[in-house]
């Protein structure tokens, strides 16, 4: 059942907020993780792979936001 009118607009705002706010949160988390990863790689280049994995962990939050956005836009 697709939403209509005002409800569809509110769902779109909700979807936007879900992706936007999680993106900002992930960015704030990645700021520190990224800086630490670059710092550690300066001393030991062999940890690039491990550092990269840690770098993308905060990104998972955005995926949660994206899932909520998709549900809000298409499944409600």
């Amino acid at each position, binding site marked *: 059942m697709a939403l209509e009118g005002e409800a569809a607009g509110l769902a779109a705002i909700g979807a936007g907020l879900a992706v936007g706010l999680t993106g900002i949160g992930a960015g704030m988390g990645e700021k520190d993780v990224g800086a630490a990863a670059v*710092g550690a790689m300066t001393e030991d280049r062999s940890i690039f792979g491990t550092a990269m994995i840690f770098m993308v962990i905060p990104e998972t939050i955005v995926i949660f936001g994206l899932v909520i956005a998709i549900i809000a836009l298409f499944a409600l």
Partner: protein
Amino acid sequence: MFRRNRGRGNYSYTVARVKAKKSLLLKEEDYDKMLMMTVPEISRYISEAGYSKEMADLAGRLSGLILLEHATYINMAKVFSSILRSSTGELYEMVSAYLDKWDVWNLKVILRGKSYGLDADGIREDLVPAGRLSAESLDKLIALDTDEDILASFGKTTHVEIPQEIISAYKSSGNLGVIEDFLDKVHYERLIKSISLTSRPSQLFYDYVREQVDVKNFETILKLKAEGIYGEQVTKYLIRGGRMIDDRTLALLANAEDIPSMVNEASQIDFGEEVKAALDANNVRDAVLGLRKYERQKAKKFSRLYPLSVIPVIDYMINKEYEVRNIRVIARGTESGLDRDTIKGLLVI
């Protein structure tokens, strides 16, 4: 929420770097191996443990123990300078204030070297250019003829004004200790002032520095007492601002007639247990070693707190300093034929 904390410092970057560096420091088993080696073998061993560039750079003009000693100091200076360069904001301010102690160290080395008639190369071997003064600035200081010129030039660069009465006291007695104690005092006072007490980690660092002042004061009292000096004479060399030793205890310690009679007052201080046996035995060397071991234990304890603060950075610098000290002790001990147990007893691990 979105305020950019430019002034706060890049803790995550610098702390990750020092943590990575710390994992490469020598461990107890490395020291055990080095105790079985000769000086050339120790040199080879430390070349593989991160000192290779300095050893290779200096190998052309130096050799043996002198090469090892100079290379370890140069390496330490480079490491500390790179940490300082990579820090920003209040972290930079605190690290820089902490590293100022090497400026004081270098000035002491230059003044002492000059007073013993050493040439420029001889003086350079003991310099650690890790503070505000670069190797070039230190060379300029070495090139100056008189102590007054050296002190004036040092004062201009580091903004440390040495009062005329201190210089006059030095001139009349010829005792460099007067200037050295004044410089130590200024260093600690500046360091204490530089710490912004805005967070719990800064407060911890502040307490740590104040404990260092206590240790330094206790060491000064011990050394003066070993030369038979006590009472008012001692008080003027003491630095204010310690944490564990209050003014009353400090006065009692200073007034004690000899080292064994300091035991009662010392037992009330946190490091009392570490120095008790040495004080009873009237052994200054062991008491100082006990103080070093206490400092190291303290640093180990506080290094595990607050990962994103100045604490891991200072902890690494303390550990690096002890590593260099231990390498030098092993090399010197081996060169002078001391037995392994004695050398091991002198290490701070």
